[in-house]
């Protein structure tokens, strides 16, 4: 306990160093900007800026990437509340009450509440991370290859079944990602796999190229000539509009706390997507409210709770990523990849071997979140104007940044072919209603999964039973099985009834889909 606080103090020292502070600020600024822009998410932002980090020291590099991640979440809320435009799926639910509030002239208040909730939730998430990570690390040190394989299996399964869309397709995409991870030289035998005699492929596929292709180029391919200029209407906001009254604060406080709790719990489970988290937080609010019918017409709690949930989840998400080396979602997979490019192996040894990265990162979360509030209050008008940057200028410029960025990763033009290939693959998959994010999860974890699988079976002399015989590993396998059964059962039940599960979450989900479609048509 005291040790953690002491380490955190050390972290603040790291995060407040000039360069680190500067890059952290740069990260949240860029993230915020990109979060506001529709069609650009944290994933594309991080993949475009990833090459920049190659020349950087690991600490500022990671601080910047993390800054982009949570900065974009703040930005996403702005579009959702002011324009009914969920540029990121987790914010779809914020639209439900946020936009009606804007129409009532309370958009500023809604944004103010969002900022307060986000900061509060992030702080709680950070505290959880400070105290939980070292504990988790202690357990993780007892892990051998068997346990690591089982927990990775659980992570992959959870990541693919709990994200958006059909769980079966998520599994298929994870498997596809695992296959992509096989390309290159086999570590154990030195044999080339799937390299098709292309020398550039003997080192495997480039993480940045895949990410840019799937989340950048594929997006442009599908959206070109479909995005229209958004009319921002009258959204002249003044700073004093953003200060909520005492009454409004009172309405927000409990939803904020409950949302934070939901986010923390779901963040601790690897693989639960942020979208599901915000929907559940909203559904919970509506369920315990005395006036559920008011939800969707502009209730403060309907904004505070999901935003708090998404921010506490974001912070807690870093726990399995940093302490076990298991990314919960595609963004975490990218950040993990960035660490590995820097030659840093994520896992239980990370905290002891690179305390400056771990504690500096945690401290920078706090600084970054505070910076975001300071930044957003005066900048809100600028963000709204930025929403009017036409897509037709945005995507050609982004294509150039992608091409140059991926070239700079290895000073080799070949990687651009990879970007193009994955852009087309991604566009086809998205068109076929697949969600491409699990590919990243599979790709990053693939080599580690294979290595630990092989090592575990080498130790057990080829006896597969080892995975269930060892207690910790057996527990993970059991949870994986329960997850599989649960997903299959709910899918089967939903099919038998002829309609999806009639829980509140589903209802909200459906109404949000309607809203999202309306937005799609309107834009």
């Amino acid at each position, binding site marked *: 306990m005291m040790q953690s606080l002491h380490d955190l103090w050390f972290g603040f020292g790291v995060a407040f160093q000039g360069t680190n502070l500067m890059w952290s600020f740069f990260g949240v600024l860029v993230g915020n900007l990109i979060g506001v822009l*529709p*069609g650009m998410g944290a994933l594309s932002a991080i993949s475009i800026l990833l090459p*920049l980090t190659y*020349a950087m020291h690991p600490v500022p590099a990671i601080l910047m990437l993390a800054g982009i991640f949570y900065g974009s979440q703040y930005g996403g809320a702005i579009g959702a509340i002011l324009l009914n435009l969920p540029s990121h*799926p987790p914010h779809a639910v914020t639209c439900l009450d946020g936009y009606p509030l804007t129409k009532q002239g309370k958009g500023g208040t809604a944004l103010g509440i969002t900022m307060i909730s986000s900061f509060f939730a992030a702080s709680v998430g950070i505290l959880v991370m400070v105290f939980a990570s070292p504990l988790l690390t202690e357990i993780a040190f007892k892990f051998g290859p068997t346990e690591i394989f089982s927990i990775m299996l659980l992570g992959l399964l959870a990541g693919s079944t709990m994200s958006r*869309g*059909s769980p079966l*397709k998520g*599994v*298929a995409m994870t*498997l*596809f990602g*695992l*296959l992509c991870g096989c390309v290159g030289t*086999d570590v*154990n*035998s030195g*044999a080339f*796999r*799937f390299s098709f005699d292309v020398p550039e492929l003997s080192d495997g596929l480039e993480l940045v190229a895949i990410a840019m292709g799937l989340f950048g180029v594929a*997006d442009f*391919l599908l*959206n*070109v*000539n479909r995005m229209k200029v958004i009319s921002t209407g009258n959204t002249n906001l003044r700073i004093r509009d953003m200060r909520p009254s005492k009454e409004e604060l009172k309405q927000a406080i409990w939803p904020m706390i409950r949302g934070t709790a939901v986010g923390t719990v779901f963040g601790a489970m690897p693989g639960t997507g942020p979208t599901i988290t915000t929907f559940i937080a909203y559904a919970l609010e509506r369920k315990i409210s005395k006036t559920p019918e008011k939800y969707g017409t502009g209730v403060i709690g309907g904004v505070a709770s999901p935003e708090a949930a998404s921010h506490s989840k974001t912070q807690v998400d870093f726990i399995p990523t940093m302490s076990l080396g298991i990314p919960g979602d595609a963004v975490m997979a990218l950040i993990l990849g960035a660490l590995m490019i820097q030659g840093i192996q994520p896992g239980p040894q990370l905290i002891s071997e690179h305390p400056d990265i771990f504690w500096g990162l945690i401290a920078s979360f706090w600084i970054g979140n505070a910076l975001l509030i300071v930044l957003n209050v005066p900048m809100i008008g600028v963000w709204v104007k930025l929403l009017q940057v036409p*897509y*037709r200028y945005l*995507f*050609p*410029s982004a*294509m*150039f940044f992608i*091409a*140059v960025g991926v*070239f*700079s990763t290895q000073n080799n*033009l070949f990687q*651009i072919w990879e*970007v*193009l290939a994955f*852009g087309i693959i991604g566009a086809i*998959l*998205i*068109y*076929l*209603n697949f*969600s491409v994010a699990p590919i990243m999860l599979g790709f990053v974890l693939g080599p580690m999964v294979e290595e630990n699988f*092989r090592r575990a*079976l080498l130790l057990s002399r*080829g006896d*597969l039973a080892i995975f269930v015989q060892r207690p910790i590993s057996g527990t993970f396998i059991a949870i994986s099985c329960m997850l599989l059964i649960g997903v299959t059962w709910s899918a089967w039940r939903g*099919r038998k009834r*002829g309609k*999806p599960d009639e829980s509140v979450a589903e209802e909200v989900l*459906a109404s949000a*889909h309607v809203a*999202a*479609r309306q*937005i*799609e048509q309107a834009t």
Partner: protein
Amino acid sequence: MRPTKSFNKDYYGGALMVIIGLAAVYASIQYKLGTLQRMGPGFFPCAVGALLALSGLLIALSARGEKPQAETGGHHPTGLPDLRGGLCIVAGTVAFLVLGNYCGLLPATFAIVFICALGDRSNTVLQAFVLSVAMMVIATVVFWWALQLQLPLIKWGA
């Protein structure tokens, strides 16, 4: 969006996964498979490929009875990509590759931005031109000069 369409998509999606999975299995049995205890390089991809083919089969099978689920793709439109836009994005990228290899950064930058910008029906040639020139300035100042990108501004031949 319509039920028939989502039916078809799952059908094709599943089939695609089966093809990729089987291709991976086929490719990996060319490498050594090995035993469970001492796995060869082909073992893991072969297993993953087989699982992928299986899940593809399940996707295609479950496409039949399933009710069309609400759109799950976030903000993605579900229609086919716009032909002109898509072609221009691909052509622009290829142009960057070729020109980057033979003529240097500036021509490549101009090509990718100009061709991609032309892919958007609302851009005029002049607008595309201005945007490309602006990006050439950024390429020179930010990437070549400040970030020391290892690609000459203008060159001739590979």
